[in-house]
């Protein structure tokens, strides 16, 4: 059985890889139908393999390590392309292939009629390959291939509409900002190698006890830099909202459900190192908590349906980091999974809205859609309730667990940040729902005429996701702290922290969480259903604050000024320096040689010329063109060779004397 499982593990990334190669090379030679069947079919097969592998892991409780081949080696370094499948990997694999499959199917409808249809699916499959390598690798370098591979696919898919300037710029920005994180990650990899002489997880974590606390902190913080880049946390969050330039399925798959959670995966995978450094842990927690709150405030006022969801993603990722930072690894993974369900649902439903409105994304130009696209409306509403944190839907359980963990471990400040963030989450999500689906229609006439419900191929995946958003929390993590997922992940991250939680306390915290979610809903209901005038009034009254939030705290502008522009300016200065100073010295030396040449003409005539037969031959070859330059060239040659001979004589003399 184990052999079969090993084979299945190897096959998981191979299916989409084959699809990439076939679609990439032959994509335009055959019909779109073939291309998309291959694309989602391959992911479907990966999903089936994943399920088989998962059942095996679940049944036997074994961890599989499979070596594909030797990749980089030499000296005492050996790095294999190899896979490690344990419960943590399984959790991610199920999300990646499962949600990935649904999104691929959805894309068949959403991308129908696009010019780059096969290109889209080729990139999506390449993304699947990279993401699978990322979560399946048994060492840091395979993780890193996947890490940069998903970054590349993100780049390609954000820039999918590459003739649009904003898309092209967003793509470059995403890649470069990610690379900042990647540089940190690379340093972490080097530190790991220098300390352990290996990059394999199992060997590293087996010896992790030898690390000094300082070194553990250094490695953990460098890893965190990587995670912050990939998961769009403060201060490297700016690329994710811009990434919404990509097609909506991309936003759902890459920029919500899977890739951006890679940072969380990395931290949980390396929890043995993080656990050694309380300092690094609190940095993780505060980065997470800060981002959760910060992104939520921006989400309050955004007017683009996808951007609201993007900031919401940044904010939710903050919760996951917060969870990691307070040691609630299982809760963080739990939130990754539930978030994958409801955020994919929300994005795809938003895509369905955009699809219905012929590309309109501004919520100020929507409204009253609940009757026109009833299925999308219902599904979106489920997603909203799930993310807002109302039981028994998925988001409640996972978010509450993270917050409860923070509270029980006396991180009251973090708890407070998370609680305020949760209030805002509930508010901006219901605001989004009200503005999109209720109230009077604000669509223009032309758009309104063409509103239509999406085809079944798009709605069906949404239903599956809605089902998971509905009951996923109960299946995976009920009862809190002792759910199925907790038991499953215990071998990797250890059993849940034993905090002396009285049942009463647990229920109290749940009650608070529910109250917060309801408050957010109530406020949104008041402002956008009951008294819309008040909302506008507040915007005018606090216009400074409102504009700051609308402009995302002007952070993009600040970064442009501080980094982009100054780097360019300095570059221009360097260019001047290179031409005038560095090259100037060279030209000055050249002129000196000219002078020397003048004085040495006669030596050249009688002594050197004989030695220049070689050059003579060359000149002969190019007599026509070369004649003009010839004399000058010979002069230079002569000068240099004479100088050289002189130098030779001097040095030889000196050496002999020594």
């Amino acid at each position: 059985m184990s052999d079969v499982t090993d084979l299945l593990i190897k096959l998981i990334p191979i299916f989409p890889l084959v699809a990439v190669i076939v679609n990439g090379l032959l994509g335009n030679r055959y019909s779109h139908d073939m291309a998309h069947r291959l694309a989602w079919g391959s992911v479907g097969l990966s999903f089936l393999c994943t399920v088989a592998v998962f059942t095996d892991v679940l049944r036997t409780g074994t961890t599989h390590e499979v070596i594909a081949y030797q990749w980089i080696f030499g000296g005492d370094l050996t790095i294999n392309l190899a896979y490690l499948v344990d419960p943590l990997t399984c959790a991610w694999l199920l999300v990646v292939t499962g949600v990935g499959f649904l999104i691929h199917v959805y894309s068949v409808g959403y991308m129908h009629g696009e010019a780059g249809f096969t290109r889209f699916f080729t990139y999506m499959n390449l993304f699947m390959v990279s993401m699978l390598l990322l979560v399946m690798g048994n060492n840091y370098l395979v993780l890193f291939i996947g890490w940069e591979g998903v970054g590349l696919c993100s780049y390609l898919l954000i820039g999918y509409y590459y003739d649009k300037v904003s898309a092209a710029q967003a793509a470059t920005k995403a890649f470069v900002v990610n690379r900042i994180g990647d540089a940190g990650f690379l340093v972490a990899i080097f530190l790991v190698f220098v300390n352990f002489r290996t990059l394999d997880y199992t060997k590293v974590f087996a010896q992790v006890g030898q690390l000094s606390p300082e070194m553990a902190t250094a490695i953990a913080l460098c890893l965190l830099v990587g995670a912050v880049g990939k998961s769009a946390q403060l201060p490297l969050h700016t690329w994710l909202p811009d990434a919404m330039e990509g097609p909506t399925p991309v936003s759902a798959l890459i920029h919500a459900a899977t890739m951006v959670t890679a940072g969380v995966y990395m931290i949980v995978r390396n929890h043995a190192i993080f656990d050694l450094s309380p300092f690094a842990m609190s940095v993780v927690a505060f980065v997470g908590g800060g981002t959760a709150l910060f992104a939520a405030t921006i989400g309050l006022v955004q007017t683009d349906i996808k951007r609201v969801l993007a900031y919401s993603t940044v904010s939710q990722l903050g919760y996951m980091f917060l969870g990691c930072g307070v040691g609630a690894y299982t809760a963080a993974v739990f939130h990754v999974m539930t978030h994958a369900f409801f955020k994919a649902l929300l994005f795809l439903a938003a895509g369905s809205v955009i699809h219905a409105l012929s590309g309109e994304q501004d919520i100020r130009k929507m409204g009253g859609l609940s009757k026109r696209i009833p299925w999308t409306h219902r599904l979106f509403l489920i997603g909203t309730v799930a993310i807002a944190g109302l039981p028994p839907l998925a988001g409640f359980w996972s978010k509450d667990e993270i917050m409860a963990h923070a509270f029980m471990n006396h991180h009251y400040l973090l708890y407070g940040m998370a609680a305020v963030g949760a209030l805002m989450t509930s508010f901006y999500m219901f605001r989004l729902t009200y503005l999109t689906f209720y109230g009077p229609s604000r669509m223009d006439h032309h758009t309104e005429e063409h509103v239509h419900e999406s085809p079944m191929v798009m709605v069906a995946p949404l239903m599956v996701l809605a089902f998971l958003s509905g009951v996923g929390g109960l299946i995976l993590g009920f009862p809190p702290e002792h759910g199925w997922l907790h038991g499953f992940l215990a071998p990797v991250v250890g059993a849940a922290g034993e905090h002396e939680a009285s049942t009463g306390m647990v229920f109290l915290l749940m009650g608070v969480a529910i109250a917060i979610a309801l408050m957010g809903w109530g406020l949104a209901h008041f402002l956008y259903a009951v008294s819309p005038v008040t909302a506008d009034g507040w915007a005018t009254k606090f216009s400074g604050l409102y504009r700051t939030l609308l402009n995302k705290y002007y952070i993009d502008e600040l970064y442009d000024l501080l980094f982009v522009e100054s780097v360019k300016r300095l570059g221009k200065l360097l260019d001047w320096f290179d031409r005038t100073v560095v090259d100037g010295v060279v030209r000055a030396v050249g002129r000196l040689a000219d002078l020397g040449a003048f004085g040495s003409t006669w030596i050249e005539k009688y002594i050197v010329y004989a030695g220049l037969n070689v050059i003579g031959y060359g000149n002969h070859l190019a007599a026509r063109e070369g004649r003009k330059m010839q004399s000058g060239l010979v002069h230079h040659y002569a000068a240099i060779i004479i100088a050289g001979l002189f130098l030779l004589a001097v040095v030889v003399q000196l050496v002999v004397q020594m």
Partner: protein
Amino acid sequence: MLEELTAGFPILSCILFLPVVGAAVLWVVDDEDTVRSAALTIALVELALCLFVLLRFVPESAAMQFTERVPWIPALGISYHLAVDGISVLFVGLTAFLTVLVVIYSWDTIRHQVKLYMMCLLALETTTMGVFVSLDLILFFVFWELMLIPSYFLIKLWGGGAERHYAALKFVLYTLLGSVFMLVGIALLNINFHEWASLHHADQAYSFDFLDLLSVPIPVSQQMVIFWLMFLGFAFKAPVFPFHTWLPDALLEGPIGMSVVLAGLKLGTFGFMRFSIPLLPDASKSETVVTILVVLGLCAILYGAWMALVQADLRRLLAYSSVSHLGFVVVGLFALNYQSLQGSLLTMINLGFSTAGLFFIAGFLYSRQQTTQLSAFGGMAKQVPLLATFFLIIGLASIGLPGTNGFVGEFLILLGAFEANWWFGAVAVLGVIFGAAYFLWYYERSMLGPLGTAVRVTMSDLQIREMIIAVSLSVMILWIGLYPSPFLRIMNGSVQALVERIHHDQTAAVGGPEIQQRK
């Protein structure tokens, strides 16, 4: 069977002289198309010979292989000594590979004096091969110098820029100046050998033979003098920052074919690895040398990348990206440990596919727009999707994306540098960020976005010959990136020997048996 047949066959001499003999044969051909086919045939036969050598090469071995050794000027100890080992053999293959691609590229892009051009190109191939396979320092120096002649004329006669005469002269003089110093260094090596030989009453009074020179000890103070003399030769050629200003001029003004060779074959850094480090290990590992060289390398990484960021001309950008990549190589060389040396060697080979490949891309763009200025590009992906795709693939290799060859080399260098001294690695890693920035920003402005106003509307995508070039480069890029094993195995033995030599206390120990045996 095959082994016996080929045992005494002077295959390296064949590889060495086939192109130049071929060039002589071209002299008598008049028809331009025949010249092209003949040149391609010669280049392909040469490549086949090199592939044979690569296939017969015994991997994981430090030994010199395919050795040919004939006395040339015995009185001075100069011999005709050719051989390859794990350090040089891949360069031999790379040279032949790139020459084939350049001939294919030049097929319809060189329109005047085709014969002369092909002759120069083949002569250049011979001299370059000579640099890689010579184990006698005088022989090496002869090829090193001869290389300048075809290069000079290639830049001067077929260059596209108005400043090509200046660029050609600057290139030749710069290199020449450096090599004069190098010659002094070589002479000192010989003198040192002579002193040692007279002291020990050896049969041989003089030698310029690399293996002989390896076998005698050199006082550290002498090593330092020789190191810096040879440094000038190799650093000017490489070019190592701040001796790089001839490079942007030569690459911008010269023909694409020449740029490919100049940017793709890293002769200067090869010189460090082949001669400076093994011959002068004590100098190479001295704190002064390591500090200066690594600092120069780090400066080159950042300076080159920063300069590349603001260039508007693709060829100038590539020139500075070359400077940046060479910075990585230099840092790797003078971090002096296994991973860093292996990474440097692999990176030198990699640049023959990625940087040289980007020059081909620049050439494809030049064929379409008659310039490589950014102002002539914009939004071209829509019109030339294949070109844009290969531009991206090769470009990503050049910035070291995992899965491409660039990553394997860069990772090993950074890892080694980090092991040697953490701040070497920490500074070098910044190059990773800059690399992404300069390449992708240029790519965004040239290929993406709306169609540029200066872009011709009727533009054809890659033609068959261009496809051959782009595809073969991409195949190599992905091969080395995903399955570098054959390449690493070829290098490992020699890299291991080099590391042992550097970190061995007795400089004379390695190579000792060689001279005994010859007595």
